[in-house]
């Protein structure tokens, strides 16, 4: 499927005329698909859709029902007006989760997904900050949101951001982008993602991102199958694993920042 899309993208770039927009629906993506057995393990394959020149495709990874319409139509608005965008990729997983209560989010805007990244939980004021946690994907984000009260109770003060689309985020004004992820945040960041650590949801992230992020390929093995709960647990994207992973990230902040500073000082 990638090959014809690549050829299409090249044709779109060179065409003197406006062409249509190819949509790729990765409808059963994420580790959840391993419930159909490991041959269906959809964590690396959806990332193939990033292998196009930057700005020529818009990747959308939805975790909540109410992200889909604003995220997609934001992408469609761009594609309908910018000829170079020839492909929109929509990635969704299978589980039916309860629709999120956005009144509890830092960004309560129902159309927040149109901005690409939005803040689920901001830093609690007046307390030490422990870093930025960026979530992408269905079970990963849902389970992270589930453990937020527990993290707060444990005194962990992280900023939690939902990453729907880096391309949509790139289209936002600088002021919004900096309000969500200021430049320094990229060095103080981990991912909780149903994708893989071979390709992060955002570019230019810090050198220790890999050391703390949570992804299905955490042990660089193909996982097995089973019920969805089994698969998510094996992927270390269940609630308990996420809690432990974020807690470690938070508690080791001084050490990881020192490590990065030392690396720069050594240059």
């Amino acid at each position, binding site marked *: 499927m990638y*090959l*014809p899309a690549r*050829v299409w993208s*090249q*044709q779109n770039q*060179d*065409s*003197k*005329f*406006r062409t249509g927009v190819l*949509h790729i*629906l990765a*409808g*059963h993506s994420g580790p959840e698909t391993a419930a159909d057995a490991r041959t269906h393990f959809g964590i690396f394959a959806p990332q193939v859709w990033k292998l196009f020149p930057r700005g020529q495709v818009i990747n959308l990874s*939805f*975790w*909540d*029902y*109410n*992200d*889909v*319409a*604003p995220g*997609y*139509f*934001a992408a*469609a*608005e761009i*594609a*309908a*007006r910018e000829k170079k965008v020839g492909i929109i990729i*929509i990635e*969704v*997983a*299978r*589980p*039916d*989760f*309860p*629709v*999120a*209560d*956005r*009144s509890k989010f830092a960004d309560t805007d*129902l*159309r927040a997904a*149109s901005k690409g990244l939005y803040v689920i939980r901001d830093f609690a004021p007046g307390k030490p900050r422990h870093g930025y946690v960026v979530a992408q994907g*269905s079970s990963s984000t849902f389970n992270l949101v589930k453990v937020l009260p527990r993290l707060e109770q444990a005194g962990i003060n992280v900023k939690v951001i939902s990453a729907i689309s880096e391309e949509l985020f790139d289209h936002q004004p600088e002021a919004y982008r900096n309000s969500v992820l200021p430049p320094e945040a990229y060095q103080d960041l981990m991912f909780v993602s149903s994708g893989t650590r071979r390709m992060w949801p955002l570019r230019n992230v810090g050198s220790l991102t890999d050391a703390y992020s949570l992804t299905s390929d955490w042990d660089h093995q193909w996982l097995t199958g089973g019920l969805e709960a089994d698969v998510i647990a094996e992927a270390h994207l269940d609630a308990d694993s996420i809690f432990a992973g974020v807690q470690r990230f938070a508690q080791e902040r001084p050490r990881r920042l020192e490590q990065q500073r030392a690396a720069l000082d050594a240059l």
Partner: protein
Amino acid sequence: MSVQVSPVSATSSKLPFERQQLEDIGFMTCMTLTLLGNYAQTGHFGGPVAYTPFNVVTHLAGPELGGLRYDYRRPKHPYCDKFMLAAGHCAPTCYALWMIMGEALYRKYEATGDRRYYVAPDVAMLPVDALGFRRGAGALKTLLADVGLADHPLFAQTRGRGIRALSGHIESTDVTNDVNGGPSGVGIATAAGKAAFWDMAGAEIGSPKIIAFEGEFAMCEGHAQELKTQAIALQVGKRLRIFFSDNNAGIDDALIGGVINRKFEGYRLIDQWTSYGWNVFSIPDGHDYDQIVGVLKAMEEWDPNDRRPMIVFGKTTKGYWPGAVNGKVGAGDQVVGYASHPYAMKMNSEYFIALAQTFEERYGVEFSGIRQGPVSDPRERLIQFKTNIDVAMSVLDRNGLGEWLADRLVEIGDRVKDNVPLRIDVKRDPFLDERLRVANLPEEPQTLTVKNSVSGAEKQVKIALFRKAGEVAGARRGVSEIVKWLNYVTENRALTLAADLSESVNLFCWLQTRAGRYIKGVRAP
């Protein structure tokens, strides 16, 4: 299923077409593409020459005989027929033919000043573009200046337009071609969708039509295999016409008797298409102009209510040469089969000279310097290259061939209509509708009336772009809602393309809003 065997030559010769002119242009095309390979020392040979007669007839027979309806002066006109050199590495046959066409129109315009023969410099492909074969656009900017030839009269056609880069595999930006012919089979795989698009738009079945070229090895590929089912599922009918160049020769091996042991007699190429329900034609000699015209006409006159896609198998010879006689080119053996796949002849080598000599003898011309061995000096190579391209082009001066060609191209081009009745409104871009903006998306569920534009039937559709917190519905269930809204606003301009995976990924919308013919097995309106 029966195979339509094209009428024999004796019958076809009664058809009104200018056979001699087509054959001469065919020989010019073969010679020109050989010159490209000779001086570029790269590219392909056997495949391009094998396609040449069919390519020439397709472009010059005229629409009444089943040839392309297109306008060289406006090759990307939306309502022209679509030509697909899916066998993209065979680009030289097209480059050469387009140069010949471009030169004919150029000469006629220069001679008469008649605007009917005018082709914009960035649209035409001209003989000087031979120098751009397999070169990058950046290198071509200074190619002549670097060797002090920028002002040389031989290259006067570059003034104001430069040299066009001609890539190794054809692209959709190239004159009449409408496909990026890349890795084997990927281009032909889009042919059914291209045909289905015009069905959806409401164009009459025969126009525009799609004529695509491909060979047996590429048709082994996975995506080419999908074409067989797609085209039947989409019921594209005579709108899709494929020429299957059947020469049993790949890159490093033959297909039958090579990759496939001959003992497997059940491996029959034609059966691989009849068994999928295609309307299969066959001509014994895919280089015979009569037979080619005959089969194109047969396809053109076929019953439009027969919704089987069409394919014609033509026996061809990879490495075909118009001047070859009984397997000989001059005194030596003709190089055919997979050995002829790459352009592997050294510059001005013995076999190239033998090929060129048949052209010289047929048309009474003489190429310059080809018998003095290869040219290593870059300046001299360019001079000899262009000089000999012009020698090939000089055949246009014989018997009014150039005049005939220019007039033919204008005649065919004038047949392209600027207004074609379609089902869709081509003056408005529905994707710019304000209702599609994020700010304007309805938050409350909608119950809308939608109409089938083919049957006229109406029904109610519920669309919920947003749901209340706590309702159990995964993100995938939102996908059907966005597509329903998109299609409601654009009047069904978004389609799913999948064998059977629409409902299982929650694209239920299609059952409610589709026009009735273009999705999931296509049901007639």
